[in-house]
């Protein structure tokens, strides 16, 4: 095979003139990280709320949370993204829909992607939170109630602090997933890492270098997140539980 490798292509000025191709790729990396972190914050908030609702002794609330989880878990991420991006603005009251459509296109794509990834991941976080709460010995809740705490207080001061420490390892893998899933945002035109990779193939005519670089960037994200989460996991370990030292 006679393929001319040109790794130096990344240092050449890009077609936009104001950056190198490496600059494009770093901009994509930045977008991927910003998108994933924003969506993760949202997923943690909604997931924790839904996870608590899933375990409360109220059939209506726990049923509602169960429906929430099933809806977001059983529709492909890509379909959800297209629904947020193409369908929802049409169904909103016209004033809101138009306000959304008049925004800067990048902002539209970014908001749709964050909301989509956030809800999608929150359903998974919810199931982890629920299993964390359910894995606690029943005595913890009873002891809280017997001390005169109300049910919300028992959740806040007794059960949730414990449950969150127990579910750090499964949350790590959800956190890794959100970075990988963020690549789907390239389908609505958001210029994150994968989209920049595709764009580089067209602009530089060096497909192998572009794709290898993007793949390496994703692996780098993976390693960084994993190393950081190891530290968090060690901090969060509950002495006396399985997996702790």
């Amino acid at each position, binding site marked *: 095979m006679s*393929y001319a490798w040109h790794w130096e292509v990344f240092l050449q000025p890009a077609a936009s003139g104001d950056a190198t191709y490496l600059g494009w790729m770093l901009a994509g990396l930045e977008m991927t990280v910003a998108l994933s972190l924003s969506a993760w914050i949202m997923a943690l908030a909604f997931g924790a709320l839904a996870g608590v609702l899933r375990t409360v002794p109220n059939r209506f609330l726990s049923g509602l949370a169960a429906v929430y989880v099933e809806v977001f*878990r*059983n529709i492909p991420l*890509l379909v959800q993204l297209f*629904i947020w991006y193409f369908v929802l603005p049409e169904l909103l009251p016209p004033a809101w829909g138009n306000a959304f459509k008049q925004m800067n296109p990048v902002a539209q794509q970014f908001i749709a992607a964050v909301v989509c990834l956030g809800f999608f991941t929150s359903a998974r976080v919810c199931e982890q939170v629920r299993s964390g709460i359910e894995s606690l010995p029943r005595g913890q809740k009873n002891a809280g109630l017997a001390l005169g705490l109300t049910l919300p207080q028992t959740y806040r001061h007794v059960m949730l602090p414990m449950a969150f420490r127990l579910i750090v390892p499964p949350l790590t893998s959800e956190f890794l997933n959100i970075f990988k899933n963020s690549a789907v945002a390239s389908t609505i035109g958001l210029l994150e890492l994968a989209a920049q990779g595709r764009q580089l193939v067209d602009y530089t005519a060096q497909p192998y270098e572009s794709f290898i670089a993007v793949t390496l960037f994703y692996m780098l994200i993976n390693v960084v997140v994993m190393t950081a989460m190891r530290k968090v996991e060690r901090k969060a370990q509950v002495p006396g539980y399985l997996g702790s030292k």
Partner: protein
Amino acid sequence: MIYEFDWSSIPGALPFLWQGMKVTLEITATAIAVGIVWGTLLAMMRLSSVPVLSWFAAGYVNLFRSIPLLMVLLWFFLIVPRLLENVLGFPPGSDMRLSSAMIGFALFESAYYSEIIRAGIQSVPKGQIAAAYALGMSYGQAMRLVVLPQAFRNMIPLLLTQAIILFQDTSLVYVSALADFFGAAYKVGDRDGRLVELLLFAGAVYFVICFSASLLVKYFRKRAGA
């Protein structure tokens, strides 16, 4: 609600959508079959005492698990066909999208399957292997006749759950403009200016299929527990 729904383009498009669903199912079935076979081999390599094999399997699994599926598919749609044209002399421009999709999904999913299967193999008590060896079985016989059948029985719910995820993920072949079920729905919606209805319809179909399948998994799990 100001938006006026018009579902009239769906009935006429059903045959086309069904064609798309067949593509989706074809990709899913191939990826499951190849994924389980190759995943089993990878899991056995990972657990083997030959360092080269276990390093290879660990490297393979970690590589595929650290990059997005979308990226793997782009590799298989944009890069691998060029490579084949250059190296094996395939005629340029031949349409390899369906086979690319199948191979891409199969290779990607086998990394995930191998982790499930590895856990399944490790869940079989060590005494079982020792007993098989004591009966004079070879490694291959012990795996095939004693360990794997028990491991697979324990893994059925997880394997099915992974299959549901895989079925949903096939919608990502959208990036190659291959008309799977989702791609077909998008094309019809785009053609008729009825994207809203078609996307909601596609979402509903996926939901019904995946939700029913997940109820089935729950049933299996309950039966296995009883």
